[in-house]
Protein backbone atom coordinates (compact mmCIF):
# COMPACT_ATOMS: atom_id res chain seq x y z
CA UNK A 1 0.00 0.00 0.00
CA UNK A 2 1.24 3.45 -0.83
CA UNK A 3 -0.03 6.63 0.74
CA UNK A 4 -0.30 9.78 -1.34
CA UNK A 5 1.98 11.53 1.15
CA UNK A 6 4.72 8.97 0.54
CA UNK A 7 4.33 9.25 -3.22
CA UNK A 8 4.57 13.04 -3.15
CA UNK A 9 7.60 12.97 -0.86
CA UNK A 10 9.39 10.46 -3.07
CA UNK A 11 8.67 12.52 -6.18
CA UNK A 12 9.96 15.62 -4.37
CA UNK A 13 13.28 13.96 -3.46
CA UNK A 14 13.60 12.45 -6.90
CA UNK A 15 13.16 15.93 -8.39
CA UNK A 16 15.87 17.30 -6.06
CA UNK A 17 18.26 14.51 -7.08
CA UNK A 18 17.71 15.10 -10.78
CA UNK A 19 17.98 18.85 -10.30
CA UNK A 20 21.30 18.40 -8.47
CA UNK A 21 22.60 16.27 -11.34
CA UNK A 22 21.53 18.88 -13.91
CA UNK A 23 23.08 21.76 -11.96
CA UNK A 24 26.34 19.85 -11.49
CA UNK A 25 26.30 19.21 -15.22
CA UNK A 26 25.85 22.91 -15.90
CA UNK A 27 28.48 24.15 -13.45
CA UNK A 28 31.34 21.72 -14.09
CA UNK A 29 32.31 22.81 -17.64
CA UNK A 30 32.07 26.45 -16.64
CA UNK A 31 34.61 25.91 -13.87
CA UNK A 32 37.15 24.59 -16.34
CA UNK A 33 39.45 27.27 -17.74
CA UNK A 34 39.39 27.93 -21.49
CA UNK A 35 36.74 28.66 -24.08
CA UNK A 36 35.20 25.47 -25.52
CA UNK A 37 33.98 27.30 -28.62
CA UNK A 38 37.52 28.38 -29.39
CA UNK A 39 38.65 24.81 -28.81
CA UNK A 40 36.22 23.51 -31.42
CA UNK A 41 37.36 26.10 -33.94
CA UNK A 42 41.00 25.26 -33.30
CA UNK A 43 40.64 21.50 -33.43
CA UNK A 44 38.05 21.27 -36.17
CA UNK A 45 38.85 24.09 -38.54
CA UNK A 46 42.52 24.70 -37.76
CA UNK A 47 42.73 28.08 -39.34
CA UNK A 48 41.92 31.74 -39.06
CA UNK A 49 39.35 32.33 -36.37
CA UNK A 50 36.34 34.06 -37.81
CA UNK A 51 34.60 36.11 -35.07
CA UNK A 52 31.12 35.52 -36.45
CA UNK A 53 31.75 31.78 -36.57
CA UNK A 54 32.99 31.90 -32.97
CA UNK A 55 29.80 33.68 -31.93
CA UNK A 56 27.72 31.10 -33.74
CA UNK A 57 29.40 28.20 -31.99
CA UNK A 58 29.22 30.02 -28.65
CA UNK A 59 25.49 30.43 -28.94
CA UNK A 60 25.13 26.85 -30.09
CA UNK A 61 27.00 25.71 -26.99
CA UNK A 62 24.93 28.07 -24.87
CA UNK A 63 27.95 30.07 -23.69
CA UNK A 64 26.65 33.60 -24.25
CA UNK A 65 25.14 35.97 -21.68
CA UNK A 66 25.35 36.01 -17.90
CA UNK A 67 25.63 32.80 -15.87
CA UNK A 68 21.95 33.03 -15.00
CA UNK A 69 20.88 33.47 -18.64
CA UNK A 70 23.07 30.54 -19.60
CA UNK A 71 21.48 28.44 -16.86
CA UNK A 72 17.94 29.27 -17.96
CA UNK A 73 18.94 28.61 -21.56
CA UNK A 74 20.47 25.28 -20.52
CA UNK A 75 17.34 24.21 -18.67
CA UNK A 76 15.04 25.16 -21.52
CA UNK A 77 17.12 23.27 -24.06
CA UNK A 78 17.10 20.23 -21.77
CA UNK A 79 13.32 20.40 -21.60
CA UNK A 80 13.34 20.29 -25.38
CA UNK A 81 15.50 17.17 -25.27
CA UNK A 82 18.54 19.04 -26.56
CA UNK A 83 21.75 17.83 -24.93
CA UNK A 84 24.06 20.01 -26.98
CA UNK A 85 26.56 19.36 -29.74
CA UNK A 86 29.55 17.03 -29.53
CA UNK A 87 32.99 18.65 -29.76
CA UNK A 88 34.62 15.71 -31.43
CA UNK A 89 31.83 14.71 -33.81
CA UNK A 90 30.79 18.34 -34.36
CA UNK A 91 28.18 19.13 -35.72
CA UNK A 92 26.55 15.84 -34.67
CA UNK A 93 24.28 16.27 -31.64
CA UNK A 94 24.91 14.49 -28.35
CA UNK A 95 21.42 12.96 -28.31
CA UNK A 96 21.88 11.40 -31.75
CA UNK A 97 25.21 9.86 -30.68
CA UNK A 98 23.68 8.49 -27.47
CA UNK A 99 20.67 7.09 -29.33
CA UNK A 100 23.00 5.34 -31.75
CA UNK A 101 24.99 3.57 -29.03
CA UNK A 102 22.42 3.06 -26.27
CA UNK A 103 20.83 -0.09 -27.76
CA UNK A 104 24.12 -2.03 -27.47
CA UNK A 105 24.46 -1.14 -23.79
CA UNK A 106 20.82 -1.95 -23.07
CA UNK A 107 21.30 -5.31 -24.79
CA UNK A 108 24.38 -6.12 -22.69
CA UNK A 109 22.96 -4.84 -19.41
CA UNK A 110 19.50 -6.31 -19.90
CA UNK A 111 20.74 -9.78 -20.86
CA UNK A 112 23.45 -9.86 -18.20
CA UNK A 113 21.09 -8.73 -15.43
CA UNK A 114 18.30 -11.09 -16.45
CA UNK A 115 20.56 -14.13 -16.72
CA UNK A 116 22.33 -13.24 -13.45
CA UNK A 117 19.03 -12.95 -11.59
CA UNK A 118 17.81 -16.30 -12.95
CA UNK A 119 21.06 -18.11 -12.12
CA UNK A 120 21.22 -16.35 -8.75
CA UNK A 121 17.66 -17.29 -7.80
CA UNK A 122 18.16 -20.95 -8.72
CA UNK A 123 21.51 -21.38 -7.00
CA UNK A 124 20.49 -19.29 -3.98
CA UNK A 125 17.25 -21.17 -3.50
CA UNK A 126 19.03 -24.55 -3.73
CA UNK A 127 21.79 -23.46 -1.39
CA UNK A 128 19.44 -21.97 1.20
CA UNK A 129 17.22 -25.05 1.08
CA UNK A 130 19.97 -27.70 1.24
CA UNK A 131 22.70 -25.84 3.14
CA UNK A 132 25.81 -28.00 3.68
CA UNK A 133 28.40 -28.30 0.93
CA UNK A 134 26.63 -26.30 -1.78
CA UNK A 135 26.28 -23.48 0.72
CA UNK A 136 29.98 -23.46 1.52
CA UNK A 137 30.92 -23.57 -2.17
CA UNK A 138 28.57 -20.70 -3.00
CA UNK A 139 29.87 -18.54 -0.19
CA UNK A 140 33.51 -19.22 -0.97
CA UNK A 141 32.91 -18.55 -4.66
CA UNK A 142 31.05 -15.29 -4.16
CA UNK A 143 33.48 -14.04 -1.54
CA UNK A 144 36.47 -14.57 -3.81
CA UNK A 145 34.61 -13.01 -6.74
CA UNK A 146 33.61 -9.82 -4.93
CA UNK A 147 37.29 -8.94 -4.88
CA UNK A 148 37.83 -9.35 -8.64
CA UNK A 149 37.64 -6.13 -10.67
CA UNK A 150 35.17 -6.60 -13.56
CA UNK A 151 37.48 -5.24 -16.19
CA UNK A 152 40.44 -7.34 -15.12
CA UNK A 153 38.36 -10.51 -15.45
CA UNK A 154 37.25 -9.27 -18.88
CA UNK A 155 40.88 -8.84 -19.93
CA UNK A 156 41.74 -12.33 -18.67
CA UNK A 157 38.84 -13.87 -20.66
CA UNK A 158 39.82 -11.85 -23.70
CA UNK A 159 43.42 -13.03 -23.46
CA UNK A 160 42.40 -16.65 -22.88
CA UNK A 161 39.51 -17.20 -25.30
CA UNK A 162 40.24 -14.67 -28.02
CA UNK A 163 44.03 -14.80 -28.18
CA UNK A 164 45.72 -17.81 -26.56
CA UNK A 165 43.35 -20.75 -27.02
CA UNK A 166 42.65 -21.76 -30.61
CA UNK A 167 40.71 -24.65 -32.07
CA UNK A 168 41.94 -25.74 -35.51
CA UNK A 169 43.64 -22.38 -35.83
CA UNK A 170 40.47 -20.43 -35.06
CA UNK A 171 39.86 -18.41 -31.90
CA UNK A 172 36.82 -19.34 -29.87
CA UNK A 173 35.56 -15.77 -29.54
CA UNK A 174 36.41 -12.51 -31.30
CA UNK A 175 38.67 -10.00 -29.52
CA UNK A 176 36.47 -6.94 -29.89
CA UNK A 177 33.51 -5.07 -31.45
CA UNK A 178 29.84 -5.96 -31.62
CA UNK A 179 29.68 -7.77 -34.97
CA UNK A 180 32.03 -8.87 -37.74
CA UNK A 181 32.88 -6.73 -40.75
CA UNK A 182 31.63 -9.35 -43.21
CA UNK A 183 27.99 -9.26 -42.10
CA UNK A 184 25.36 -6.66 -42.96
CA UNK A 185 23.42 -5.31 -39.98
CA UNK A 186 19.74 -6.20 -40.24
CA UNK A 187 17.35 -9.03 -39.53
CA UNK A 188 19.41 -11.86 -41.01
CA UNK A 189 20.92 -14.98 -39.49
CA UNK A 190 24.65 -14.29 -40.10
CA UNK A 191 24.30 -10.90 -38.40
CA UNK A 192 22.46 -12.41 -35.45
CA UNK A 193 25.07 -15.15 -35.00
CA UNK A 194 27.90 -12.65 -35.28
CA UNK A 195 26.29 -10.42 -32.64
CA UNK A 196 25.91 -13.38 -30.29
CA UNK A 197 29.52 -14.50 -30.76
CA UNK A 198 30.79 -10.97 -30.11
CA UNK A 199 28.57 -10.46 -27.06
CA UNK A 200 29.56 -13.77 -25.46
CA UNK A 201 32.73 -12.70 -23.63
CA UNK A 202 31.38 -9.36 -22.34
CA UNK A 203 28.23 -11.13 -21.17
CA UNK A 204 30.10 -13.97 -19.46
CA UNK A 205 32.31 -11.42 -17.67
CA UNK A 206 29.31 -9.45 -16.43
CA UNK A 207 27.25 -12.49 -15.45
CA UNK A 208 30.05 -14.21 -13.51
CA UNK A 209 30.68 -11.09 -11.45
CA UNK A 210 26.99 -10.25 -10.97
CA UNK A 211 25.12 -13.46 -10.16
CA UNK A 212 26.87 -14.35 -6.83
CA UNK A 213 25.37 -11.24 -5.20
CA UNK A 214 21.86 -12.28 -6.21
CA UNK A 215 22.54 -15.91 -5.20
CA UNK A 216 23.69 -14.88 -1.71
CA UNK A 217 20.67 -12.62 -1.22
CA UNK A 218 18.30 -15.35 -2.38
CA UNK A 219 19.98 -17.86 -0.06
CA UNK A 220 19.64 -15.53 2.93
CA UNK A 221 15.99 -14.73 2.29
CA UNK A 222 15.18 -18.41 1.73
CA UNK A 223 16.67 -19.17 5.14
CA UNK A 224 14.64 -16.37 6.73
CA UNK A 225 11.43 -17.52 5.05
CA UNK A 226 12.03 -21.13 6.18
CA UNK A 227 11.69 -19.89 9.77
CA UNK A 228 8.25 -18.41 9.11
CA UNK A 229 5.18 -19.87 10.80
CA UNK A 230 3.35 -20.49 7.54
CA UNK A 231 6.15 -22.80 6.37
CA UNK A 232 5.89 -24.70 9.63
CA UNK A 233 2.13 -24.97 9.15
CA UNK A 234 2.60 -26.19 5.58
CA UNK A 235 4.94 -28.89 6.81
CA UNK A 236 2.61 -29.80 9.65
CA UNK A 237 -0.34 -30.35 7.34
CA UNK A 238 1.82 -32.70 5.29
CA UNK A 239 2.29 -30.78 2.05
CA UNK A 240 4.89 -32.18 -0.32
CA UNK A 241 8.31 -30.63 0.11
CA UNK A 242 8.36 -29.55 -3.53
CA UNK A 243 5.08 -27.68 -3.15
CA UNK A 244 6.34 -25.96 -0.02
CA UNK A 245 9.52 -25.01 -1.77
CA UNK A 246 7.86 -23.65 -4.88
CA UNK A 247 4.72 -22.02 -3.55
CA UNK A 248 5.65 -21.07 -0.01
CA UNK A 249 9.37 -20.41 0.12
CA UNK A 250 10.57 -19.34 -3.32
CA UNK A 251 7.63 -17.09 -4.06
CA UNK A 252 8.18 -15.13 -0.87
CA UNK A 253 11.95 -15.12 -1.12
CA UNK A 254 12.03 -13.72 -4.66
CA UNK A 255 10.57 -10.32 -3.73
CA UNK A 256 13.64 -8.86 -1.96
CA UNK A 257 15.78 -10.13 -4.85
CA UNK A 258 13.51 -8.31 -7.29
CA UNK A 259 13.92 -5.00 -5.45
CA UNK A 260 17.65 -5.46 -5.16
CA UNK A 261 17.88 -5.60 -8.96
CA UNK A 262 17.21 -1.88 -9.26
CA UNK A 263 19.84 -1.04 -6.65
CA UNK A 264 22.37 -3.43 -8.14
CA UNK A 265 21.75 -1.91 -11.56
CA UNK A 266 23.68 1.26 -10.70
CA UNK A 267 26.70 -0.91 -9.88
CA UNK A 268 26.32 -3.12 -12.95
CA UNK A 269 26.28 -0.01 -15.16
CA UNK A 270 29.78 0.93 -13.95
CA UNK A 271 30.98 -2.62 -14.57
CA UNK A 272 29.38 -2.73 -18.02
CA UNK A 273 31.09 0.53 -18.99
CA UNK A 274 34.52 -0.88 -18.17
CA UNK A 275 33.74 -4.19 -19.86
CA UNK A 276 32.64 -2.31 -22.99
CA UNK A 277 35.99 -0.54 -22.97
CA UNK A 278 37.83 -3.88 -22.71
CA UNK A 279 36.03 -5.34 -25.73
CA UNK A 280 35.65 -2.06 -27.69
CA UNK A 281 31.95 -2.84 -27.56
CA UNK A 282 30.17 0.10 -29.23
CA UNK A 283 27.78 0.93 -26.36
CA UNK A 284 27.44 4.01 -24.17
CA UNK A 285 30.38 3.01 -21.96
CA UNK A 286 32.84 2.75 -24.82
CA UNK A 287 31.46 6.01 -26.21
CA UNK A 288 32.03 7.62 -22.81
CA UNK A 289 35.59 6.26 -22.76
CA UNK A 290 36.22 7.74 -26.21
CA UNK A 291 34.66 11.02 -25.11
CA UNK A 292 37.03 11.09 -22.12
CA UNK A 293 40.10 10.48 -24.27
CA UNK A 294 39.06 13.15 -26.80
CA UNK A 295 37.91 15.64 -24.09
CA UNK A 296 34.45 15.72 -25.66
CA UNK A 297 32.79 17.41 -22.66
CA UNK A 298 29.22 17.78 -23.99
CA UNK A 299 29.14 14.07 -24.79
CA UNK A 300 30.47 13.14 -21.31
CA UNK A 301 27.79 15.33 -19.74
CA UNK A 302 25.00 14.00 -21.91
CA UNK A 303 25.85 10.39 -21.07
CA UNK A 304 26.06 11.21 -17.34
CA UNK A 305 22.65 12.86 -17.45
CA UNK A 306 20.94 10.07 -19.39
CA UNK A 307 22.34 7.34 -17.11
CA UNK A 308 21.47 9.26 -13.93
CA UNK A 309 17.93 9.94 -15.06
CA UNK A 310 17.41 6.33 -16.07
CA UNK A 311 18.65 4.90 -12.79
CA UNK A 312 16.95 7.40 -10.48
CA UNK A 313 13.61 6.95 -12.20
CA UNK A 314 14.01 3.16 -12.34
CA UNK A 315 14.67 3.09 -8.58
CA UNK A 316 11.54 5.07 -7.94
CA UNK A 317 9.39 2.83 -10.14
CA UNK A 318 10.72 -0.33 -8.51
CA UNK A 319 9.89 0.97 -5.03
CA UNK A 320 6.34 1.64 -6.13
CA UNK A 321 6.11 -1.71 -7.91
CA UNK A 322 7.36 -3.49 -4.80
CA UNK A 323 4.59 -2.05 -2.65
CA UNK A 324 2.10 -3.02 -5.34
CA UNK A 325 3.38 -6.61 -5.62
CA UNK A 326 3.70 -7.28 -1.89
CA UNK A 327 0.60 -6.22 0.04
CA UNK A 328 2.52 -6.41 3.33
CA UNK A 329 4.67 -3.46 2.33
CA UNK A 330 3.23 -0.19 3.50
CA UNK A 331 4.97 2.94 2.28
CA UNK A 332 3.88 6.04 4.12
Amino acid at each position, binding site marked *: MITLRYLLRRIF*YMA*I*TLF*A*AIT*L*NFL*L*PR*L*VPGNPALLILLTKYRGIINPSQLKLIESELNLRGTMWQQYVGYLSSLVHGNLGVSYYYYPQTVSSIILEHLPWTLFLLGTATLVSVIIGVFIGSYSGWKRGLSDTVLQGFS*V*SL*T*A*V*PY*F*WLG*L*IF*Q*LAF*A*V*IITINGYHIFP*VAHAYGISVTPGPNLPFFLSVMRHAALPLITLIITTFPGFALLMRNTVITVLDEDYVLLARAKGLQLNTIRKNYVNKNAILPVATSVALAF*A*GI*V*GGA*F*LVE*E*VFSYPGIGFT*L*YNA*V*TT*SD*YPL*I*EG*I*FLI*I*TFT*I*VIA*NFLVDILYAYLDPRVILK
Partner: protein
Amino acid sequence: MTNSTHINDVRKIIASGGSMTRFRSFLKQLMRNWKGRTGALILLSLVLLAIFGYLFAPYNPVSSNAPSFQPPTHSHLLGTDYIGEDIFSWFLVGAGTSLLVGASIAVIAITIGVAVGVIAGYFGGYIDNGLMRVVDVLLVIPGFPLLVILSAFLPPTLETTIIVLGILSWPFISRVIRSQTLTLRRRPYIMASELSGLSGLRIIVRDIIPNLIPLIFINAIFLAIGGVVAQAGLAFFGLGDLRSVNWGTMLYWFQAEDGIVYNAWWWLIPPGIGIILLGVGANFLSNAVYEITQPARGSK
Protein backbone atom coordinates in the same frame (compact mmCIF):
# COMPACT_ATOMS: atom_id res chain seq x y z
CA MET B 1 31.04 19.23 41.28
CA THR B 2 31.42 16.29 43.67
CA ASN B 3 28.15 14.93 42.45
CA SER B 4 29.23 14.99 38.82
CA THR B 5 32.57 13.28 39.55
CA HIS B 6 30.66 10.60 41.36
CA ILE B 7 28.50 9.97 38.31
CA ASN B 8 31.62 9.99 36.21
CA ASP B 9 33.03 7.20 38.37
CA VAL B 10 29.88 5.16 37.95
CA ARG B 11 30.03 5.76 34.23
CA LYS B 12 33.59 4.48 34.11
CA ILE B 13 32.69 1.33 35.97
CA ILE B 14 29.78 0.60 33.64
CA ALA B 15 31.89 1.25 30.58
CA SER B 16 34.51 -1.13 32.05
CA GLY B 17 37.91 0.01 30.93
CA GLY B 18 39.19 2.70 28.60
CA SER B 19 38.50 2.73 24.89
CA MET B 20 42.00 1.48 24.05
CA THR B 21 41.59 -1.53 26.34
CA ARG B 22 38.32 -2.36 24.62
CA PHE B 23 39.88 -2.01 21.20
CA ARG B 24 42.79 -4.21 22.28
CA SER B 25 40.47 -6.93 23.52
CA PHE B 26 38.63 -6.70 20.22
CA LEU B 27 41.92 -7.22 18.37
CA LYS B 28 42.77 -10.15 20.67
CA GLN B 29 39.46 -11.82 19.88
CA LEU B 30 40.13 -11.20 16.20
CA MET B 31 43.48 -12.97 16.44
CA ARG B 32 41.92 -15.94 18.23
CA ASN B 33 39.67 -16.54 15.20
CA TRP B 34 41.39 -18.38 12.29
CA LYS B 35 39.66 -16.27 9.67
CA GLY B 36 40.76 -13.16 11.51
CA ARG B 37 44.37 -14.38 11.58
CA THR B 38 44.35 -15.30 7.88
CA GLY B 39 42.83 -11.98 6.85
CA ALA B 40 45.21 -9.98 9.02
CA LEU B 41 48.19 -11.94 7.68
CA ILE B 42 47.25 -11.32 4.03
CA LEU B 43 46.56 -7.63 4.56
CA LEU B 44 49.65 -7.10 6.70
CA SER B 45 51.92 -8.67 4.07
CA LEU B 46 50.41 -6.42 1.41
CA VAL B 47 50.88 -3.36 3.60
CA LEU B 48 54.52 -4.32 4.20
CA LEU B 49 54.92 -4.81 0.44
CA ALA B 50 53.44 -1.36 -0.10
CA ILE B 51 55.71 0.32 2.45
CA PHE B 52 59.02 -1.44 1.77
CA GLY B 53 58.45 -3.03 -1.64
CA TYR B 54 60.06 -0.21 -3.60
CA LEU B 55 63.38 -0.91 -1.81
CA PHE B 56 63.51 -4.28 -3.57
CA ALA B 57 62.61 -2.95 -7.00
CA PRO B 58 65.51 -4.08 -9.24
CA TYR B 59 65.04 -1.23 -11.74
CA ASN B 60 63.55 2.20 -12.02
CA PRO B 61 60.02 1.34 -13.19
CA VAL B 62 59.84 4.23 -15.62
CA SER B 63 63.11 3.72 -17.46
CA SER B 64 63.33 1.37 -20.37
CA ASN B 65 66.38 -0.86 -20.25
CA ALA B 66 65.36 -4.00 -22.11
CA PRO B 67 63.57 -5.11 -25.27
CA SER B 68 59.83 -4.50 -25.17
CA PHE B 69 57.23 -7.22 -24.50
CA GLN B 70 59.76 -9.66 -23.09
CA PRO B 71 58.30 -12.66 -21.17
CA PRO B 72 59.63 -13.32 -17.63
CA THR B 73 63.38 -14.02 -17.47
CA HIS B 74 66.05 -14.10 -14.75
CA SER B 75 66.91 -10.43 -15.10
CA HIS B 76 63.24 -9.39 -15.45
CA LEU B 77 61.21 -11.61 -13.14
CA LEU B 78 57.86 -10.48 -14.52
CA GLY B 79 59.02 -9.54 -18.00
CA THR B 80 58.88 -6.11 -19.62
CA ASP B 81 56.17 -3.84 -20.97
CA TYR B 82 55.70 -2.07 -24.32
CA ILE B 83 58.77 0.14 -23.96
CA GLY B 84 60.93 -2.33 -22.06
CA GLU B 85 60.20 -1.18 -18.53
CA ASP B 86 60.57 -3.80 -15.80
CA ILE B 87 57.12 -5.03 -14.72
CA PHE B 88 58.28 -6.47 -11.38
CA SER B 89 59.52 -2.99 -10.41
CA TRP B 90 56.24 -1.46 -11.61
CA PHE B 91 54.35 -3.93 -9.43
CA LEU B 92 56.42 -3.21 -6.30
CA VAL B 93 56.40 0.57 -6.64
CA GLY B 94 52.76 0.50 -7.79
CA ALA B 95 51.73 -1.38 -4.64
CA GLY B 96 52.88 1.59 -2.57
CA THR B 97 51.00 4.16 -4.63
CA SER B 98 47.84 2.07 -4.90
CA LEU B 99 47.63 1.34 -1.17
CA LEU B 100 48.48 4.94 -0.27
CA VAL B 101 45.65 6.12 -2.53
CA GLY B 102 43.30 3.61 -0.92
CA ALA B 103 44.32 4.60 2.61
CA SER B 104 43.91 8.33 1.87
CA ILE B 105 40.46 7.74 0.39
CA ALA B 106 39.52 5.75 3.51
CA VAL B 107 40.72 8.54 5.82
CA ILE B 108 38.64 11.18 4.01
CA ALA B 109 35.55 8.99 3.77
CA ILE B 110 35.78 7.81 7.39
CA THR B 111 36.21 11.37 8.69
CA ILE B 112 33.14 12.68 6.87
CA GLY B 113 31.10 9.50 7.31
CA VAL B 114 31.71 9.19 11.06
CA ALA B 115 31.07 12.90 11.66
CA VAL B 116 27.80 12.87 9.72
CA GLY B 117 26.66 9.52 11.15
CA VAL B 118 27.38 10.36 14.78
CA ILE B 119 25.88 13.85 14.57
CA ALA B 120 22.74 12.57 12.85
CA GLY B 121 22.36 9.66 15.27
CA TYR B 122 23.12 11.61 18.43
CA PHE B 123 21.18 14.80 17.85
CA GLY B 124 18.29 13.28 15.88
CA GLY B 125 15.31 15.37 14.83
CA TYR B 126 15.73 17.87 12.01
CA ILE B 127 19.52 17.45 11.90
CA ASP B 128 19.15 13.71 11.43
CA ASN B 129 16.41 14.12 8.85
CA GLY B 130 18.32 16.71 6.85
CA LEU B 131 21.60 14.79 6.82
CA MET B 132 19.97 11.48 5.93
CA ARG B 133 18.10 13.02 3.00
CA VAL B 134 21.43 14.27 1.64
CA VAL B 135 22.79 10.73 2.06
CA ASP B 136 19.75 9.31 0.23
CA VAL B 137 20.29 11.64 -2.71
CA LEU B 138 23.99 10.75 -2.90
CA LEU B 139 23.32 7.03 -2.70
CA VAL B 140 20.87 7.08 -5.60
CA ILE B 141 23.12 8.85 -8.12
CA PRO B 142 25.03 6.17 -10.03
CA GLY B 143 28.59 6.19 -8.73
CA PHE B 144 30.72 5.40 -11.74
CA PRO B 145 29.27 7.96 -14.20
CA LEU B 146 29.48 10.61 -11.45
CA LEU B 147 33.13 9.70 -10.81
CA VAL B 148 33.86 9.89 -14.52
CA ILE B 149 32.29 13.30 -15.00
CA LEU B 150 34.02 14.79 -11.95
CA SER B 151 37.41 13.35 -12.87
CA ALA B 152 37.02 14.45 -16.48
CA PHE B 153 36.56 18.12 -15.56
CA LEU B 154 38.96 18.41 -12.62
CA PRO B 155 42.75 18.49 -13.10
CA PRO B 156 44.12 14.98 -13.81
CA THR B 157 46.23 14.41 -10.70
CA LEU B 158 46.35 11.65 -8.10
CA GLU B 159 45.19 14.18 -5.49
CA THR B 160 42.02 14.89 -7.49
CA THR B 161 41.26 11.18 -7.70
CA ILE B 162 41.77 10.78 -3.95
CA ILE B 163 39.57 13.76 -3.06
CA VAL B 164 36.79 12.86 -5.48
CA LEU B 165 36.70 9.21 -4.38
CA GLY B 166 36.95 10.16 -0.70
CA ILE B 167 34.09 12.62 -0.95
CA LEU B 168 31.88 10.17 -2.83
CA SER B 169 32.55 7.15 -0.59
CA TRP B 170 31.24 8.36 2.77
CA PRO B 171 27.41 8.10 2.49
CA PHE B 172 27.15 4.37 3.08
CA ILE B 173 29.37 4.30 6.17
CA SER B 174 27.54 7.30 7.64
CA ARG B 175 24.35 5.22 7.66
CA VAL B 176 26.04 2.34 9.48
CA ILE B 177 27.56 4.71 12.05
CA ARG B 178 24.25 6.49 12.54
CA SER B 179 22.31 3.34 13.36
CA GLN B 180 25.02 2.19 15.78
CA THR B 181 25.01 5.62 17.45
CA LEU B 182 21.25 5.37 17.88
CA THR B 183 21.60 2.17 19.92
CA LEU B 184 24.59 3.51 21.90
CA ARG B 185 22.58 6.57 22.87
CA ARG B 186 20.20 4.46 24.88
CA ARG B 187 22.95 2.78 26.93
CA PRO B 188 22.93 3.64 30.65
CA TYR B 189 26.43 5.12 30.78
CA ILE B 190 25.67 7.56 27.98
CA MET B 191 22.51 8.59 29.80
CA ALA B 192 24.58 8.99 32.95
CA SER B 193 26.95 11.29 31.08
CA GLU B 194 24.02 13.31 29.84
CA LEU B 195 22.60 13.59 33.35
CA SER B 196 25.96 14.72 34.67
CA GLY B 197 25.64 17.69 32.34
CA LEU B 198 28.42 16.91 29.88
CA SER B 199 28.04 18.69 26.55
CA GLY B 200 26.88 16.75 23.52
CA LEU B 201 30.20 17.21 21.76
CA ARG B 202 32.10 15.84 24.75
CA ILE B 203 29.88 12.79 24.99
CA ILE B 204 30.37 12.15 21.29
CA VAL B 205 34.15 12.41 21.50
CA ARG B 206 34.64 10.62 24.83
CA ASP B 207 31.91 8.02 24.92
CA ILE B 208 30.39 7.38 21.54
CA ILE B 209 33.30 7.41 19.09
CA PRO B 210 35.55 5.16 21.26
CA ASN B 211 32.78 2.58 21.26
CA LEU B 212 32.53 2.73 17.50
CA ILE B 213 36.21 2.01 16.90
CA PRO B 214 35.87 -1.69 15.94
CA LEU B 215 33.13 -0.75 13.46
CA ILE B 216 35.16 2.16 12.09
CA PHE B 217 38.23 -0.06 11.81
CA ILE B 218 36.60 -2.74 9.67
CA ASN B 219 34.82 -0.18 7.51
CA ALA B 220 38.06 1.71 6.97
CA ILE B 221 39.66 -1.45 5.59
CA PHE B 222 36.80 -1.95 3.17
CA LEU B 223 36.82 1.71 2.12
CA ALA B 224 40.55 1.53 1.45
CA ILE B 225 40.18 -1.56 -0.73
CA GLY B 226 37.15 -0.08 -2.48
CA GLY B 227 39.34 2.95 -3.08
CA VAL B 228 42.13 0.88 -4.65
CA VAL B 229 39.64 -0.84 -6.98
CA ALA B 230 37.84 2.41 -7.87
CA GLN B 231 41.09 4.21 -8.62
CA ALA B 232 42.15 1.28 -10.80
CA GLY B 233 38.83 1.48 -12.64
CA LEU B 234 39.16 5.22 -13.20
CA ALA B 235 42.74 4.89 -14.39
CA PHE B 236 41.66 2.09 -16.71
CA PHE B 237 39.08 4.50 -18.12
CA GLY B 238 41.87 6.96 -18.89
CA LEU B 239 41.12 9.30 -15.97
CA GLY B 240 43.44 10.72 -13.34
CA ASP B 241 47.21 10.88 -13.52
CA LEU B 242 48.16 8.20 -16.05
CA ARG B 243 51.89 8.85 -15.53
CA SER B 244 51.67 7.72 -11.92
CA VAL B 245 53.01 4.21 -11.24
CA ASN B 246 50.22 2.15 -9.67
CA TRP B 247 48.22 -1.05 -10.27
CA GLY B 248 45.44 0.87 -12.04
CA THR B 249 47.73 2.60 -14.53
CA MET B 250 49.46 -0.76 -15.15
CA LEU B 251 46.16 -2.12 -16.43
CA TYR B 252 45.46 1.07 -18.40
CA TRP B 253 48.76 0.88 -20.29
CA PHE B 254 48.30 -2.85 -20.83
CA GLN B 255 45.02 -2.07 -22.59
CA ALA B 256 46.14 1.12 -24.35
CA GLU B 257 49.37 -0.36 -25.68
CA ASP B 258 47.82 -3.59 -26.99
CA GLY B 259 49.16 -5.95 -24.34
CA ILE B 260 46.42 -8.32 -25.52
CA VAL B 261 47.78 -8.46 -29.07
CA TYR B 262 51.27 -9.30 -27.76
CA ASN B 263 49.81 -11.94 -25.45
CA ALA B 264 51.57 -10.20 -22.54
CA TRP B 265 49.92 -12.18 -19.69
CA TRP B 266 52.90 -11.38 -17.45
CA TRP B 267 51.85 -7.74 -17.60
CA LEU B 268 48.15 -8.34 -16.95
CA ILE B 269 48.20 -10.87 -14.11
CA PRO B 270 50.28 -9.18 -11.31
CA PRO B 271 48.13 -6.08 -10.66
CA GLY B 272 44.94 -8.16 -10.74
CA ILE B 273 46.33 -10.68 -8.25
CA GLY B 274 47.37 -7.80 -5.99
CA ILE B 275 43.85 -6.35 -5.98
CA ILE B 276 42.23 -9.76 -5.50
CA LEU B 277 44.47 -10.55 -2.50
CA LEU B 278 43.41 -7.28 -0.89
CA GLY B 279 39.76 -8.23 -1.30
CA VAL B 280 40.25 -11.78 -0.05
CA GLY B 281 42.10 -10.56 3.05
CA ALA B 282 39.40 -8.03 3.86
CA ASN B 283 36.66 -10.63 3.43
CA PHE B 284 38.34 -13.03 5.84
CA LEU B 285 38.68 -10.23 8.35
CA SER B 286 35.08 -9.10 8.01
CA ASN B 287 33.80 -12.65 8.42
CA ALA B 288 35.81 -12.91 11.63
CA VAL B 289 34.40 -9.61 12.88
CA TYR B 290 30.91 -10.84 12.08
CA GLU B 291 31.48 -14.03 14.06
CA ILE B 292 32.84 -12.07 17.03
CA THR B 293 30.11 -9.44 17.15
CA GLN B 294 27.21 -11.81 16.43
CA PRO B 295 28.32 -15.13 17.92
CA ALA B 296 24.91 -16.78 17.76
CA ARG B 297 24.34 -16.21 14.06
CA GLY B 298 27.95 -16.52 12.99
CA SER B 299 28.36 -20.07 14.28
CA LYS B 300 25.35 -21.34 12.30
